[in-house]
């Protein structure tokens, strides 16, 4: 396969198509057309990603999935993008999520929709970039770019406290990424000279960087804080519930479904291989934080009365587990994280869709005000119950496999962490069932009395999600095969 006769590669397509589509969107005036166009564009992206999955084998089709152009060649940074197993999976997740989101929220109307959908598509492009970047500087670019549109989306179309909340979110992440930038530069300055330039940002150069243990330790923190804020891990999480609560739901779906994965992804891609010894030096601290976070968030989730905050905290708990599993440095843990990234994306988007449907119909998110929806909208209820149970990792749903492996990875690391973290399984059951009972069971009241059954398109979307849930719950092997190489590479680097 000669790279010359490939005129464009999948990663490029995945990045540029949404970008162009988004820019086009800004110039469409009719709201209806805008929506159709957005759905169409996202579906095309989905097709592209599907096609890329066909050529996922990096050995055979390497040049379909990897490409590099000169960019700041004197600085030794080239525009290098590529898809490895993890990249394939996460781009696929991104590609699936957007059409789902667009269709599920098709009925929501926004003021100047063209801007809204344009920004959404730009976000998608940025995310694709993050997941495909093979050059540290390129990565940093997309990392920032993915946030900017979200900032505007949230503070333009969000709830009443949106401006403060979003601004907090922005400054918080911005500070984090600036710290990371210092780390990036420092690493760059210590990469070995190459032919093109005296230092380089390329992945290999960064992986092979020569640093003393002390340097690695503090640079590790520069990076980790940035990612921890994005994930978010325990003490850095406070921006999240406010933002999720204030943001328009479709943006919240992007935030929690995909953007959160940016942090997890980044830790796997840019921390584990670069600072192996720092990782094993601080693993106890990080895992400790994550475990505390899991319990803490689950406890708070029990007390939440706002559906959105509820989901937000439950998501914090799950992310905590992922972060902990990453730092166990065990194959089992990492594989678990891989599959869980995908599953969590699907499940939480499902949760948001249901929450949004309820809010759209009843006009409230207060759990205490709802009730008895089950016999007003049984189908909705069934979907929610399935998704919620998937969310608490019931067997034969996709999340179970992930959590099972992450936990057993954690167990190999240390028994007591696992025992404590395990409590979150119970707490998860507690808060989820509480929510289900309060919102769906019992007698209908004045607010929920007018509840209608959901429309066909919504049913279809949810059905798609549910199918995915069970598919990967019963037969997760494809995901394993996809990400196996990535994991093994990292493991070997960690050795």
């Amino acid at each position, binding site marked *: 396969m000669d790279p010359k006769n490939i005129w464009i590669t999948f990663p490029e397509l995945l990045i540029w198509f949404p970008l162009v589509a988004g820019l086009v969107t800004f110039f469409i005036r009719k709201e209806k057309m805008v929506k159709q166009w957005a759905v169409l564009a996202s579906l095309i992206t989905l097709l592209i990603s599907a096609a890329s999955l066909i050529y996922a084998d990096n050995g055979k089709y390497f040049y379909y999935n990897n490409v590099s152009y000169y*960019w*700041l*060649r*004197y*600085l030794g940074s080239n525009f290098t993008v590529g898809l490895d197993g993890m990249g394939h999976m996460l781009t696929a997740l991104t590609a699936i999520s957007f059409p789902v989101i667009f269709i599920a929220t098709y009925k929501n109307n926004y003021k100047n929709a063209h801007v809204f959908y344009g920004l959404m598509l730009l976000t998608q492009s940025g995310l694709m970039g993050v997941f495909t970047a093979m050059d540290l500087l390129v990565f*940093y*670019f997309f990392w*920032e*770019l993915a946030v*900017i549109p979200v900032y*505007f989306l949230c*503070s*333009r179309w969000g709830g009443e406290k*949106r*401006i403060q909340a979003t*601004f907090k979110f*922005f*400054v918080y992440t*911005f*500070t984090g990424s*600036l*710290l990371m*930038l*210092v780390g990036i*530069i*420092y690493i*760059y*300055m210590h990469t070995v000279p190459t032919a093109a330039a005296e230092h380089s940002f390329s992945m290999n150069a960064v992986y092979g960087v020569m640093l003393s243990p002390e340097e690695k330790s503090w640079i590790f923190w520069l990076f980790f804080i940035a990612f921890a804020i994005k994930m978010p891990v325990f003490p850095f999480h406070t921006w999240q519930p406010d933002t999720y609560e204030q943001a328009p739901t479709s943006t919240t779906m992007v935030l929690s479904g995909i953007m959160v994965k940016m942090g997890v992804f980044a830790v796997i891609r840019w921390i584990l291989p670069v600072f192996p010894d720092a990782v094993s030096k601080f693993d106890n601290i990080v895992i400790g934080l994550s475990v505390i976070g899991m319990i803490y968030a689950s406890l708070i989730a029990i007390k939440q009365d706002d559906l959105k905050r509820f989901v937000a905290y439950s998501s914090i708990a799950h992310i905590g587990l992922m972060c902990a599993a990453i730092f166990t440095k065990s194959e089992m843990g990492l594989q678990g994280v891989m599959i869980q990234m995908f599953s969590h994306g699907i499940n939480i988007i499902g949760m948001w869709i249901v929450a949004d449907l309820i809010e759209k119909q009843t006009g409230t998110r207060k759990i205490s005000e709802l009730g008895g929806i089950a016999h007003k909208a049984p189908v909705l209820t069934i979907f929610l119950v399935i998704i919620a149970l998937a969310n608490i990792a019931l067997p034969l749903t996709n999340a179970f496999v992930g959590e099972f492996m992450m936990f057993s990875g954690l167990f190999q690391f240390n028994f007591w962490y696992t025992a404590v973290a395990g409590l979150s399984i119970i707490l998860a059951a507690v808060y989820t069932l509480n929510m289900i009972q309060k919102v769906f069971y019992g007698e209908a009241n004045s607010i929920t009395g007018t509840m209608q059954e959901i429309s066909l398109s919504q049913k279809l979307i949810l059905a798609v999600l549910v199918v995915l849930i069970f598919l990967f719950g019963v037969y997760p092997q494809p995901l394993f095969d996809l990400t196996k190489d990535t994991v093994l590479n990292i493991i070997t680097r960690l050795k």
Partner: protein
Amino acid sequence: MNAIILTAIWGVMMMLGGAFIKSKTTPKYLAIFGLAAIIIANCMQMNSGMAFFSVDVKNMLHFNSFNLTFINVAFGCTLLLFLLNGRDIEKVGENVSEYFALIFFILCGIAIISTFNSLLMLFIGIEIVSIPLYILTGSDKRNLKSNEAALKYFLMGAFSTGIMLLGIAFLYGGSATGSFYIDNIISGNAPMPAMIAAGLVLLLISMSFKVSAVPFHFWTPDVYDGAPTVFTSFMATIVKAAAFFAFVRLFENTFGSMHAQWQTLIVILIAATLLIGNLTAVFQQSVKRMLAYSSIAQAGFMLFSLFAMNNLAKEGLVLYAAAYSLASIGLFAVLIKMKDYTIDGFNGLGKQQPLLAVTATVFLLSLTGIPLTAGFQSKFYMLMAAVQTGQHIWLVIFAVLCAAISAYYYFRIIQAMFFKECKEDVILADDITPAFKILLVLTAFFIIVLGIFPGMLTDWLYF
């Protein structure tokens, strides 16, 4: 050389023109035309070494692609300023052509201080820059603020001139054979004699006064606030950048060899400047004044080039000058059009003038240093330069934290523009011409291009 002489000549032309041309608009076109021509001439000298005048400069000036590029940047920005705000210059007062003449003289001075090779030229150049500035500051004669600003600027400027002269005197006295040529005042990196040191400190202080580095920045907010906005935009961007260039040039060629001995002072300057600049900007209500403080903050970043003193730093300085000037000029251009200079005055601009709002957003993002904008690249270069020195990493971290603070006040404007409702139905002072819009868009576009391919600028510096 072309630049210096032509600007001088054109200045005179403008002045005389002022005597005969009665219409208020002609001088603008004259000036634009002249400046364009001068830039072309400069490029010619840069690319093909072609000089129109063969003056024996006795090595008092020194030209290379580096400072010629900088001159281009400075003049280019000025041209942009003319194009964007020519009409506002006309609004300031009645002697329009004189204003333009003065600006040309200032440009001449800028050309001198970016190429000087002898302290004498530095001194004269700086004076040529400052004296017209005093006048421009005071040019809005009826406005007490303007007068006050002028006087303040003048008094403190003169004061700093005195300090600079004392410094020069000490350098002269301390130098081995008594010379004003910056490159043979001292040689080697032996611990410097006390008189040189004294001279160095005094020069450092007077220069940091010019670039408004804390604690010698006090004139900046008041003057920028008081001066007519057009000229503020000129002062805050082009002049300041030039002063920086001179600063770096002076210290690199004179004291570069004993860099280590005075780095401490720079570190203090940087830390203080970043902190004070950013913190004070946070609370400002008037956008104009806020931009004044933000210019101080940005100066803090530019000082890194003095701290690092390596190639990255020099490239970075030029890049920074360009990025910062473009963004600020654009922002000022928008600001001038506003009725109300307070942040609330921007409320709802996004609805009334989406284009203005969007471009303004690009400028603000660039100032904040968001990737894909020139602002990011320049900050990036500076940080890289600083890290390359391998010392005072804490300073770098401190700097990025300050940058995070800066996001705070820049984004207040964005919030005002897009997410707040405007009170009165029209918030613009005067109508927006299509040309103005196109120019703004071009500027924004250029900023983004620079943000993606900074090489476009930095590669000029070598050949």
